[in-house]
């Protein structure tokens, strides 16, 4: 039997078009709005922050257009050398590395046991 460890996705079921490029993107893909389904401020704000750390990104912002729709729009504008798609991909990678590092650090601190136990 297959048992999933964290798998919160099964319930929400990853939608067929989880990420879409909204109409109006520039042809060279340097300014693009992505629509991400079934995501909210949890991923939206942290991803926005991660993308904004990239010096090749001129602008990044996110919004949740309507509270009853499980959609999150993220707008990225980049300098000419890279596309918004690359910037989003890099942002996702960075966010993942950060969470991985936080997890490792937390586990290390728990292991050290240098805290009050009541």
């Amino acid at each position, binding site marked *: 039997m297959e048992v999933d*460890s964290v798998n919160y996705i099964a*319930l929400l079921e990853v939608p067929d078009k*989880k990420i879409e490029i909204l109409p109006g993107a520039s042809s060279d893909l340097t300014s693009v709005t992505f629509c991400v389904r079934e995501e909210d401020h*949890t991923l939206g704000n942290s991803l926005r922050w991660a993308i904004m750390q990239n010096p090749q990104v001129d602008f990044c912002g996110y919004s949740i257009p309507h509270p009853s729709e499980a959609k999150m729009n993220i707008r990225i504008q980049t300098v000419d050398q890279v596309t918004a798609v690359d910037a989003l991909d890099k942002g996702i990678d960075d966010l993942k590395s950060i969470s991985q590092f936080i*997890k490792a650090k937390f586990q290390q*601190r728990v292991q050290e046991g240098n805290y009050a136990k009541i």
Partner: protein
Amino acid sequence: MALQDRNRVVILEDRVENVSGAEFPMSFDGQDLPFNLESFKDSFDIEIIRVTPTDIEFDLIGVDASIANALRRILIAEIPTMAIENVYMENNTGIVQDEVLAHRLGLIPIKADASKFLWKRPEDMPTDQSTIVFKLEVSCQHNREAAPGETDPKKKYINSAVYSSQLEWEPKGNQAERFADSPCKPIHDDILITKLRPGQTISCMLHCVKGIGKDHAKFSPVATASYRLLPEIQILEDITGDDADLFCSCFPPGVAEVVVENGVKKAKIVNPRKDTVSREVLRHKQFDGKVRLTRVRDHFIFNVESTGIIAPEDLIVQALDVLMEKCNIAKAALAKAINNDEDDE
């Protein structure tokens, strides 16, 4: 802005200044701060302050509010647990109506490892891999051994109050072997579900399924999950004499204390962490320009209280796993979206 002030939120008498951070590349003149994982690793730290069987307090230092907030939001809404989802009422002659009783039952925290269960969609049939079954059968009767004239319902009647301990687990399939080490049961035995009087009966079957707090708060593994920024109090000019006493009385006990230096009383900050940032000190004219209240913008004091289903130190790890999983899904979805786009052309 001075470098050391960049990550300080300034608390003034009537307003809070410098609230949002600007730690982005090219935000500051002549400064370039591109994000780099190595420098993040150097400046980032976690300090665990206190762990109890249900609570954890820890400091998350050197991250942006968006990351801290993502962690908090995941703790509340996106970590799976098991909770009673369906109540099959066979008989209920008690005073609490079926739907209210079912709602109360749903909120009882159930000790079961959600990772050992499969997700169940509403249309799926329950199986031993996805569902835990409990039974609740209680009838209230007169206690024949009660003293005449007894007025305490607990002595006068049997089963006058129904507690969570009366839920009986019915292992299905191989559940008895699978969970031999940790049988499924309510976390607390003393949760009052309802009250009964002689002749009243409740008989029902309860199905627990896996879910997340986003769907219903009963699935949330935390009672509270919150953070605050580390307060900081700077004394810019010595506060002496009786003013020192007044100064210390402006803060909760343990934050500031009066010390005697060369025979002069002087106020000293001991532990700003205990401060509630009431700003009382800013109301007094004599401290004008002598004290500065700030908060450290990238120092988060987390307080997480588990419902008891998941150990608090595991909660944080699971929350970070969920965040990473979100990234994995987004990355795959982005690749798919780009491929689809190219196919269309």
